[in-house]
């Protein structure tokens, strides 16, 4: 099955509904479209934040995400995948990133979207820093995210080296 894929790393805001709509426009084989949007919260660990700043590794971020998209397309019968991830300063209420997956049936679209999110969180080279009233701090990685990614036991990305 040919999967149409789009991976974009950008500073600018994006419109998740418009981007997701592109996966179904002009075709009648899609029966399920799953969209996940990560949004900047106004509080972190109970404390209000002014903004998030996302640092990334240019070149590697794109390459890593392309690897997960290829892996997802091998595992599930996907018709289309879109991943957009922003970097730079993002204020509460703004979208940080999105994953959209299109398939004939919902199971593949749901599973692939979750798989992509679990890998993005733990393996894509992005780092969040929060701006609070008393300064800036780097967000710690969560063990729960690692556990979520490990359940897929994929052969791609960093897990191939283990």
């Amino acid at each position: 099955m040919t999967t149409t894929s789009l991976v974009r790393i950008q500073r600018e805001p994006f419109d998740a509904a418009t981007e997701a709509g592109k996966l179904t426009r002009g075709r009648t084989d899609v029966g399920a479209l799953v969209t996940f949007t990560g949004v900047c919260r106004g509080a972190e660990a109970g404390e209000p934040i002014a903004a998030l700043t996302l640092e990334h590794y240019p070149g590697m971020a794109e390459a890593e995400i392309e690897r997960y998209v290829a892996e997802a397309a091998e595992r599930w019968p996907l018709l289309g995948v879109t991943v957009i991830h922003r970097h730079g300063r993002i204020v509460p209420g703004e979208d940080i990133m999105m994953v959209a997956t299109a398939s004939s049936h919902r199971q593949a679209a749901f599973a692939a979207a979750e798989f992509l999110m679990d890998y993005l969180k733990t393996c894509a080279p992005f780092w969040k820093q929060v701006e609070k009233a008393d300064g800036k701090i780097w967000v710690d990685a969560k063990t729960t995210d690692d556990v979520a990614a490990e359940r897929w036991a994929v052969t791609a990305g960093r897990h191939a080296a283990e």
Partner: protein
Amino acid sequence: MTIKLRYFAWVRERVGKPDEDIEVPSGVATVGELMVWLASRGEEYAHAFGNPKVIRAAIDRSHVKPQTPIGKASEIAFFPPMTGG
């Protein structure tokens, strides 16, 4: 052999620069050994690489483990566990 090192997030802040070119000393064969050597280069480096277990690495833009040989790498990056998404 000259290779480019790149640092991200708090590793970059602690080292005090985003990248640099270094000569890999003889006797340093793996990514983990490179971290041990880097930690010995001064206060900033000791602060950044003092606990190598919490640092991740990539060779030429692919994730690697500490035991991975440096081989013919042209770029090695060091960074904390990722927190995107």
